[in-house]
């Protein structure tokens, strides 16, 4: 299975879905013009990956800001990961947030509450 790599723009996140190493990353901003259009190929890729996932998948969310339209699509991404986890393949999600960004932390807590998936909230280390 081919990796999915989408480079970031000033309004869409960088997405790396690497099936060989089981490392997924979403970083940057998410305020796309067409949120569903942006995330649909990601959903399709995850459906394919779920047929033969690695024993452990690490997922990193390191987002700067996003709107509620993207929140819904991120929830859909997480639901697909939840299904992989429920099928017995470990999925470890880390949700990074800036220590000054209580809203991003709260969003991570929302996803923790809504999903049966291990989501670790982690403060970003300032460079």
């Amino acid at each position, binding site marked *: 299975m081919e990796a999915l790599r989408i480079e970031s723009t000033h309004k869409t996140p960088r997405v790396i879905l690497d099936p060989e190493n089981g490392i997924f990353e979403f970083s940057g*901003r998410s305020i796309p013009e067409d949120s569903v259009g942006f995330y649909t190929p990601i959903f399709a890729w995850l459906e394919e990956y779920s047929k033969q996932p690695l024993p452990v998948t690490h997922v990193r969310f390191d987002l700067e800001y996003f709107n*509620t339209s993207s929140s819904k699509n991120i929830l859909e991404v997480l639901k697909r990961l939840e299904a992989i986890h429920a099928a017995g393949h470990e999925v470890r999600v880390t949700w990074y947030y800036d220590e000054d*960004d209580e809203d991003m932390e709260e969003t991570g807590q929302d996803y923790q509450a*809504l999903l049966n998936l291990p989501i670790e909230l982690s403060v970003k280390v300032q460079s």
Partner: protein
Amino acid sequence: MVATESELLHEPALSYAYPLYRNMLDNSVVFIYNGPITPDLIVDVLNLVEYRLEDSREDRRISKKLFNIMVESFTIGDDVERGGAVLLVRQLPYLYAVSVGRRVRGDSVYAIKSFIDWVNTCSSEELRDAYHHLLQGKATHSIPPHIGGVPSISILDLARKSHDFLHYNFEYLDDFESFFSLEARIRKNNS
């Protein structure tokens, strides 16, 4: 096309500029925009506001919250077919106020008003529960996904992020439309 002498003598911008400037100053308006809202515009506006905040050495916690509230306010103003939307940021000594204004159908005024009134009575737990419902796309009998073209989840999101009452106003335009304004506030001592 060359302007006629008569046109040059009646340059309207000159008569509008000072009252506009004075009005912005009197109301502590640091940013105002009128027109269609696109993701590119959002990025440009955020960069501009970031520059101003750096200049005023605002607390990063407040800056982050202001940004997050602005991003969601844009969502309320986008997708407006006619006349675009108005966005406004006010900077007062003790708070920031982010306002968005747009046209809505006249027959949706009561529903929008009732929804915001209800949101303003909710505890943080009630807001969270309602937000979770809408985030999951679960229809509830009391909260449709959109009310008069305004996304309900965005209103809930603004209320959660601002930790304050949402302020609103409706201006009657004609029998079919009203102008809806919504303001979310960020208190600088917000904890």
